[in-house]
Structures are given as C-alpha cells and as structure tokens.
C-alpha cells in the first residue's frame, strides 16, 4: 500500500469518526471541537487531491473563523450542561425519517457519479494550485464570481444593519 493510500484511509476513518462524534456528543462544546477535527480531516483529503488552496481556505474560513463564532455563542449562552431535556419520542422518529430521506437522496444522486470519481487524480495535476484557480476564476467564471461577491457584500451589509438596530 502506498503512502497516499494509507493517508487516505486514515483521513477517511478520522473524518467519519469525528463526524459521528459531532452528532452523538451530548456536550455542545465537544460537538464543536469534533466538527473542527472533521474540517481538518477533509482538508487533508483536499491536500491528497493537490487542491492546496481549497485545503488552506477550508481551514482559515471554516475551522478558523466560523467555528470560533460557534464556540462564542455556545460559551456565552452557557450551553455546557451535559443533561439536556429529554426529547419527545415522535420528534426522534421525525429526525430519523428525515435524516434517512436525505441519505437516500444523496446515495441516489451519487451512485451514478462513480465513473467520475475514478478519474480524480491523486498527488498530481495542478488544477488545485492558486495560479490555475485564479486564471480560471477571472477568465471563464468571472461573471459568477463577481455575482457571488456582490451577494456576499449585500449579506455583510445586511448583517451590520441588523446588528446596529439596538
């Protein structure tokens, strides 16, 4: 087994295990920390595919910024009590059914893409490097790129406006 195959399996197990721990942890702070571990494992997968920029940005934005805000809210609201109020039986059932439905949809959507996934190159190719990415974004995809930046800007202005109300 080559080094990249070993890394792939280690990262996959880490990602799946930490993702399961996010859902099953009773303490919300532990959930957030397991979610950070999940992001790191996924970033490792990006690096295996040589998508370095995506890997780094995933850590900066998700693990470094968004998760800090999650921790902020949980710490300030003092949601650290291990004992949560017991949920209703039918609520658990509804959760199970909707989660299962989502799984079904995802499996149905992904089962035909098997051919494509085999074509993804490991440890080679420069599609994920910042030069290729920048040239693609500012030539072929410049209109979607600029549109999404306007969307982000308006969301930011909206957030500031809501924050200023009181």
């Amino acid at each position, binding site marked *: 087994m080559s*080094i*990249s195959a070993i890394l792939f399996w280690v990262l996959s197990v880490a990602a799946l295990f930490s993702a399961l721990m996010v859902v099953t942890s009773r303490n919300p702070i532990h959930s957030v920390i397991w979610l950070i571990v999940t992001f790191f494992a996924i970033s490792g997968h990006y690096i295996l595919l040589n998508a370095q920029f995506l890997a780094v940005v995933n850590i900066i934005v998700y693990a*470094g910024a968004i998760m*800090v805000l999650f*921790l902020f809210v949980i710490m*300030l609201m003092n949601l650290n009590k291990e004992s949560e109020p017991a949920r209703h039986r039918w609520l658990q059932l509804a959760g199970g059914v909707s989660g299962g439905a989502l799984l079904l949809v995802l499996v149905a959507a992904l089962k035909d893409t098997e051919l494509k996934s085999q074509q993804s190159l490991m440890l080679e190719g420069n599609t994920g490097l*910042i030069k290729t990415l920048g040239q693609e974004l500012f030539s072929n995809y410049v209109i979607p790129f600029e549109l999404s930046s306007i969307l982000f800007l308006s969301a930011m202005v909206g957030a500031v406006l809501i924050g200023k109300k009181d």
Partner: protein
Amino acid sequence: MVIGAVTLWFILEKVILIASIIGLSFFIAMYTTLAERKIAGWMQDRHGPNRAGPFGILQPLADGGKLFFKEEITPVTSNRFLFLLGPALAMIVALVTSTVIPWGAPVVTSTGIISLQVADVDMGILIVFSVVSVGVYGIMIGGWASNNKFSLLAAIRGASQMVSYELPMSLALIAVLFMTGSLKMSEIVSYQMANGWNIIYQPLGFLIFFICALAECNRTPFDLPEAENELNFGYHQEYSSMKLGFYLFAEYINMFVSSAVMATLFLGGYDIPFVNEANWGLAPWLYSLISFSVLMAKVSFLLFVFIWIRWTIPRFRYDQLMNLGWRKLIPLALFNMVLSAAILLWLKS
C-alpha cells in the same frame, strides 16, 4: 529504502531540520524572556535579574526548573481533557508556523541542494495564516475548560481580538502579494533580493502588519486577555506548573515566529542588505550560515522592538482596541491595498 517517491535520506534530512528549528525556537524563546526582563530593568534604571550565572544568563533555566517542580493543580469542576488540550494546542500552533519560513540560503552540495526550509509549498504564507486562525482555540478551550468566569471572559476577549486583527493583517499582506506575485515564501524572498525590500514599497503595509502581529501575540498594548487589573490573571488563571509554562512560553515562541514572518515578508528574509552576496564566491555552507545569521539579526531587532513597545506604551481599553482594529486599521489597509494595486497597474501599462 524507498517509501513512494520519498527516500530515507530525505526523511532524515527533514527530521533533523525540524528538530533543529524546534530547538532553536525554544532556545530563542527562553532567552527572549531574559531579554524582556533585562530590557525592562534597563528602561526602569535597575539591574534586572543578575543572580543566576554571570549577568543572569542562567535565569531562564532557573525559571523553567521552578515551573517544572511546582505543584500541578487541576480544578475539580473543569473538563480534564480539554483543560490539558488548551496549553498543548497553544504550543503546537506556535511551533507549526515555522515550517514554511526559509531560514537561510539553500546549501548546494555535491549530492544535491539542501533547503533550509521544511516545506516550500505553493501556499506558503497562507499556511501561516491558517495556523494563526487556528491559534485562537488554545486560548478559548483553555479559558472555557477552567470553569472560571474570569478565564472565560478573558478567553472570549482574546478570541475576538485575534479574529478582528486577522482581517487588517491579511489585507496588508495582499498588497505585498500584488508585488511579489507568489505565495511561496522562497519566491517572496528572492523577489526582494532582486528588487529591494518590501518595506521600502510598503511602509504603511508593514506598520499595519506589525500592529496586528502585536495584537495576535497578545502583547502590550493589546494584552487584554491577561489584563491583571480587570481579570485577575486572564485566561490561564486556573493553570499551574508547566501547563502555565506552556501558555507563557507559547507567547514568546509566537513572538519569535511572527518576527521571522515579518522579516521574511518585509525585510528581505535572509537577504544581506546593500551588497550583492552572489559575487563573493563563498563556500555554499558559509554563505548559508551568513544568510541565516542575517535573518536572526533581523528577528532579534524585531523582538527588541516588541519588548521596547511593551515597556513604553500602556494597555488599551477594550473599546479602543476594537475601534482601532475595525474603524482605523481595516480602512487604512484597504486604502493601502487599492493604492498599491492602482500604482502597479499604472506602472505596468
């Protein structure tokens, strides 16, 4: 033995390099603590520590030994694992950043080139920023797991301060990247060797970056997470023994690494100023040694400025800190970015 495309010799070379960089970081951090106290003494017209060894040069060892032998107390109510994870994370994150810094000119030998950089990756400086953005967790997890209101308040202060000052820092960085055109640390250095140091073209960018580095390292005047008169001791209040030592030590390693990053980005890295060292015809190992010493001289100067500021400027109030970050530094950094872009476009056309 060959694992994939990697030879055993390559692994050995990198392991030695990593070990020596970690050793160097610890050594410099140790002596920065002494320098801090000596310079404080000098500025306040007193001797500073002078008991352990001649001129007090054994003082850091005495301090470290003291911390090791102190009783270790874990508060009963705290979360044991997270309580341990906090200082460990602070230390790991402080050390990891040094992987992408080129510590000197590569040594050319008969068998190949030995790079004095652990990893010269395409993302270079962005790796530094991703590690910095993860650095918040050491403080936050430690402060929360202490189960102390003062620690929690200090941790939240520290985290919001670090998140706020990352923004102007990255905006100041973008102006540098406009000029160098690469994220690779080695290429940023070689650009500066050919075209002059970035601080000449980006003085405002350097100033913003330096102020943000002060805030990221929780140094005075931005040391609000450990403001003693408001928060007793700050986020590491419940810590004792070497766990406290890790937090205090991580601060000095952070100072060292951020000085090295600033020297690489703005002060030409290992470039020797005013001369063209390529014409000297020195032996490659000697040239690498000299370039490494030059980088260390720049780092030492920046460390001195860090300490100098600590004993000169009083601490900011929290609202002043946030005002400075969001209302002054971010617009200033944006202005710097737009101006640099406009001038570069004008020069190119």
